[in-house]
Every structure is written in C-alpha cells, then in structure tokens.
C-alpha cells in the first residue's frame, strides 16, 4: 500500500503542472500565416503562443464579427478552475498520505479518479460551450458574412479536439503539456488504485 500511496501522491501532484503549462492549444495557420497564430489555454487564462498572437487573432476575427478572446477577468472559469485544480491536488495528496499510513483504503484512489473525471468532463463541456459561443455568436454588423448552403450563418467554432478547416484557416486543437501532465497524473492514480487493490487481495489470500 505504501508504493500505491506514493504513486497516488505523485499522480495528483502532476496536476500542478497546469499552473505552469497550458492545458490546451489551438493553432491557426493560413496561407498568409505560414507561422501559425496560436492560443495557449491555461487554467487561469488564455495567452498567445507568440507575444502578439491574441491581438492578431482578434484583429482578423473582427472581419467576421467574432468577439475578442476573453481576458482572465471576463470569464468566471478562469478564477474557479485554479481553485478546483488546487483542491483536487490537495485532496489527492491527503488521500495518498492517509493511504500511506493505512488510514484509508485503496478505494479512495479510484474515488478521487472518478471525481476528477467528472470534473474534467464538466470542464470540457463548459469549454466546448464557450467555443460554440465564440464561433457562432457573431456581430450582426460583421464586415464579412459567410453563410452555409442552407442560408444559416456559418459557424467559426474551433474544434474541441483535432483538425478543422475554417475559411482560409487550418485550425488544430490539441492538449498541451499541462493537459498531458494531467492525463498522466490521472492515469497514475488509476495505477495506484490497481496496485493497492492487488496488494490488498494478496493480503486477503495470505
């Protein structure tokens, strides 16, 4: 159980990477942008990949009536998410420590994992809603209005995951280092659960 608990602690602590590295990244390349513009999505705000990328994305998007990329103060998510992440790290570490001194069972590990997964799915859902609004809630006075074949206004929603062509832009949306660290961390808590379970089964058979 000691080994499993240590892995649990390490796994939950890997979430701290989200405070240093971006969770997600969206890159926008176009014929005129051989060096693509990009936004890095952190738990506490959005930053340009290059210094002036956000300004330039906003500059281009005003033609099609998209809102500017929100500043940290303009979205409640950016003040809540850091707290949630920090809370989950603390919770994970505490569970790990208690596991280490055999005060809680390995089942708490999977409990943490499931709780984190639910929060993650909620987060993704919220993120997707924002993308939807960002890409389709357009200024009616937009300079350029593009419609779908059926006459409805075209949506510029970037993909949640993967690649999509939006007008002249090639848009790629993928997790970034922070996101990968989170996935690894969460997987480690599963490993911790599996190890803890194996150990306790072994004990039971002895």
């Amino acid at each position, binding site marked *: 159980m000691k080994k499993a608990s240590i892995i649990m602690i390490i796994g939950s602590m890997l979430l701290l990477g989200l405070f240093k590295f971006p969770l997600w990244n969206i890159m926008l390349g176009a014929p005129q942008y051989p060096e693509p513009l990009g936004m890095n999505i952190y738990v506490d705000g959005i930053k340009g990949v290059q*210094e*002036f990328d956000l*300004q*330039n994305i906003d*500059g281009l998007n005003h*033609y099609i009536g998209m809102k500017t990329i929100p500043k940290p103060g303009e979205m409640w998510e950016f003040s809540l998410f850091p707290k949630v992440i920090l809370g989950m790290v603390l919770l994970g570490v505490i569970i790990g420590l208690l596991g280490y001194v055999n005060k809680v069972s390995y089942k708490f590990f999977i409990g943490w994992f499931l709780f984190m997964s639910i929060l993650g799915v909620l987060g993704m859902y919220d993120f997707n809603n924002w993308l939807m609004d960002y890409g389709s809630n357009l200024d009616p006075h937009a*300079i*350029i209005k593009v419609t779908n074949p059926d006459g409805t206004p075209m949506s510029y929603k970037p993909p949640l995951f993967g690649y999509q062509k939006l007008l002249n832009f090639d848009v790629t949306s993928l997790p970034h280092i922070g996101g990968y660290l989170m996935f690894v961390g969460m997987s480690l808590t599963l490993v911790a659960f599996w190890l803890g379970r194996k150990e306790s089964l072994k004990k039971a058979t002895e």
Partner: protein
Amino acid sequence: MKNILKSTLAILGVLVTFSSCNNSSNSNKKSGALASNVAEKVYVAPGEHDSHYAFLSGGYSGNLTVYGLPSGRMFKEIPVFSQFPTSGYGYSEETKPMLNTSHGFVPWGDSHHPDISQTNGEIDGRFIFINENNTPRIAKIDLTTFETTEIIEVPNSAGNHSSSFVTENTEYVVAGTRFSVPIPQRDMPISEYKGNFQGALSFISVAPETGNMDIKFQVLMPGFNYDLSHPGRGKSHGWFFFTTYNTEEASTLLEVNASQNDKDFIAAINWKKIEEYVNNGGGTMMPANYAHNVYDEHTHTATSTMKKEVRVVNPSEVPGAVYFLPTPKSPHGCDVDPSGEYIVGNGKLSANLTVHSFTKMLAAIENKKFAGEAYGIPILNFEDVLAGVVEQPGLGPLHTEFDGQGNAYTTFFISSEVVKWKLGTWEVLDRKPTFYSVGHLTIPGGNSRKPQGKYMFAMNKITKDRYLPTGPEMEHSAQLYDISGDKMELLLDFPTHGEPHYAAAMRADLIKERSKKIYRLEDNKHPYAAKSDDDTKVVRKGKEVHIYMTTIRSHFSPDNIEGVKVGDKVYFHVTNLEQDFDVPHGFAVLGQNTSELLVMPGQTKSSVWIPTKVGVWPFYCTDFCSALHQEMQGYIRVSAADSSTPIKWSLGEDIE
C-alpha cells in the same frame, strides 16, 4: 596631344588582342545535361531560403541592395544616401536629417564599398558599413532592421573612395580620400596643386556596443590619389594598406599625366601606433564642419548634429607609423590575404600582379633599408618587400579576393575575366570569362580571416547582350561561380541594380536569426505617436496643424478631418498600430509635394503637406494591407485661408 594618341592606339591594340583570345575560351555554351546540372546548383525551390546574403552597393543609386545566393534574387533595396520615395526615406520628417551635410540637404549619393562588421577577424553580421564617394560620408546599416541608422560626413576628404573597410574587431571603419584637396579648403590656383594639396585618411572609431561612429583621427598624407584600402589581419592586424596613384601629383589630364611614374605606392599605415600617439594627446584639433546623423530606433527619428572640429595627424610627426611600398603602375585594388601576410597590389596598367610580403616589410623597416622618402615618409625598396609576382595573368587587374584555401581570385577589367592563382607559388590555376569588363568580385566572408568559400561573384560594368534589351540603359550584370572545385564553374548570370562597385556577402544563418519582424509599439517613443485610437487628435499651433493618426486593418483614425486652411503646414503623424509581421500601411494625400509614407508595424512616420487649394481632398493607404484595403481611406477638408472652420476630426461618425 601626340602622347594621348599613342597611348590610345596602344590600348586599342591590346583590346583587340585580348578580345580575340577571349572568344576562343568562351565556354558559355553547355550541353543540355551539363546545363541542368548547373541549374540545380542555383535552384532554390519555392519557399526555400538561400544559403547566403549578398549586399551589393548601388553605386550611383546611392543605396545598398540585398540579394540571396545562389539564386541571385533581390530581396530589398536599402535606402542609404539617396531619397527613396518607396518608403519615404529622405522625404519623411523623421529621415530628412539623415541626408543633412555641411553642404545642406544632399538628396543623392554614390555608394561604393560595403563591408560587414567583424569580431576577432571574422564577420559577425551586426552592421554593414558603406561609403558615399561624392559628398564624403560613411553610413552604418543595422542588420537587425536592414535600415540605415547612422551617417557621418568625412571632412577634408574628397571622393571618399578608399573606404569603408573595417579592422579585425571593428575598432575602426576607415575612409580614405580619392582626390587630394587643399586642407583646410581655401581659394587657391589649381595649378599650385603639387606640394600644397593633401589627402586625408580617416579612422572612424566604432563603439563596441552601440556601433556609434566618431572620427578618431585623420592622417594628412601627401597629395596623391588614394584609391582603395584594406586592413591588415592576423599578424598584420594594426596596419592598414592604401593604394595610391597620381604620385606625379598632376591636376589635369590624369589619364596620361598620372600614368607616367613606373611605380606608385601602397601606403602602409600603423594605425595602432597613431592611435597610441593620439591617445597621448598627439595630433591637432582642426576647425571643421561636418554632419553626424543618427537614427533612433525608438523615436523612429533621425537627428543631425554639426561637429566643429576634427583631430588631424601629420605622419612625419609619428616616426615609424607610415611607409611607402613601391607598386607598379597605378595600383587599384589593395587586398590582404586571410593570413595577413600578403598584400596584393592590382596595378591596373601593369601586365603583372605584384604581391608584397608583410614579414619582409617589417624586416626592411627594422633594417632601415630605405630607397628614399616622400614628404618625410620613408620609401622601402621594391625588391625588399616583394613576395612574388603573378606573371602575365591578364590585362587590367583590379581586385583580388581569397577562398581561405590558399587561392586568390583576381578580376581583369580589360581582358574581362577572373583568374584564379595560388598564393606562394604565384602560378595561374584557372581563368574564366566574365560578361563584360568586370570590376569587383566578392567571395562571402571576403575581407576577413575566414572567407566562406563555395561561391564567388563578379560584378561587371558592361551588359550589352546578356539579357533582353531594355533600350540604351541597362542594369549591370553579375555572374556567380562555384569555386569549390579546382576549376571555377559559371553558375548564374543575374542583373543588379545601379552600379554595384563592391559587395559584402556572408552565410545567412547569423543575420537571419536576428532579423526583426516588427517594431514594438510599446517601445515607440516618437513624440507625435498615437499608440491607440484614444490618442488620436488634431492640434493647431498657429499655422501648423499636427494630425496624430493611427492605422490598423483597415482604417485610418481619424478619417474625417476639418478646419485645415490653405497655406497651413499640415503634419500627418502616422502610427501603424499593427504588431503583425509584414503588415505595413501606407499614406498618401492628393497633391502631396513629397513622397508617400510606408509605415512598418509599431512605427511612426510624418509627412508634411501644405495645401494650396480649397476643397475636400482624399487620402488613402498605399499598401494593399488587407481584404478591405480599398476601404482604407479618408477625407481632409481644406478651407480658405481666412475662413473660420473649426478644427474637428472623427472616425465612424459624422463630424458634428
């Protein structure tokens, strides 16, 4: 008169001989397979980058052009000594001071010899210097922005030709005079030239960090013509070598009268010794008047300061600092090999190439073996300093460059060819024709301890049939050769702009990494900058009207302006708010008596307009900046001089 006739006939005879010889060696016609092999060597696929930068002087265009090698494609014309309406250089209020001189505003120049800054004898790609021949000046171009950032006028100089070459650590950029003149200038009979005129060789210090130029001292030499120069390097670091002609000191019909002496000189100057003399208070401060123009990247503005004195040094006051090396027949180019041992005098009227030895020169000086003196300057014996002679390599040698593999390449103007020969054995290894009448040649990294081999290009004076004809006036031609093998191989023929006298070239990597993409708006310290739409305004100060204007895709702010009157001096101060690579905006107003402005992201430029007619006049963006470029326009209302129309401005709404 008889003399002229004779020499003309002689030269004609020679020309005939050499041109017939040339025809037989014309290897220009290649079979298909071979030609495609050559094509591959210069083919840079679409979107790929060239491996080398080449900076070609523009000669009488006054500018510097930037090329890629091996493709021979031109990337930019950098305005230096001439007004350039394309960007507004020399027309905008910010850049007009760059062209200020002691003779007032000079809108044109004749640029000659670019040279890239060096550290430890290797080119470092920070700055490139270039001389103006006519109204003597030296300019510095910053290779992070590819813009001219400093120009210093050179007093006491006339025909600033033996310039602008840098020493091993860019301690100095050196500017020698072609014409000798009265120093200080005064009203005197031209016929009293001999013994009265002098030639100033200027050592301009370059501050290590900023690159700021300052004339440290001028050596006042005898009244010869100082043609070209090069620094010593390695063992000869601390010395500078200048070719001279007209040691006869003739002031008229020089083509004959300056060609009488069997030998002229290469002047060897121990600048370290003179520097020490000057640092100890040596030399005299002479009253002078010359302009020092500096462009500040943060205010985006140049200032011109008149300097009032210059330190001059009489070489006879500094024993052991200056010597003359006899060199046959009006030498032109003065080239020092990468080791610093060999000094090549390209005697343009000689059939042979003369190479002096630095080691032998030092020994002769040590032994005090002098053949005589001229104006107090010791003359060494020709035989004592001679390292070797390249026998009969061609006719009309002008310039030599080195490949760093022990080979030298010399251009021959009259026989129109480049000849490769070996340092030390002086044997000719190869020759290739040029098209036609080559002046300078360049090997990347040329003036340094470490030439970068691989390519050599020849810059020709005559084009004739090389390209589709364009009437009587044609661009000059250049040829690129592969010099990586034993024999030179002609790869490419490309047109150049103006008259490239010389070029500096280097591998692209160092420069490419440092090249700026934008100017940061937050660093913009221009006094009339409007850094956001909130800063835009129109301010009247008596007859002056200052318009603080911004541009961003795709509008001007403000774009409606009223209250301007006929005869007002209207300043359009245009700030480009973009912070995106390669998104300039332009500005032009109908009837503007200067050029347009082309404003880079983060930059501010100002144009003055004095309206002469009542009316509503349009202005627009001259650069196709965006899909809505044609919408990027505005109106300025001009009222009668005695009207009372108030100053008003707006964007996006009607003026109330």
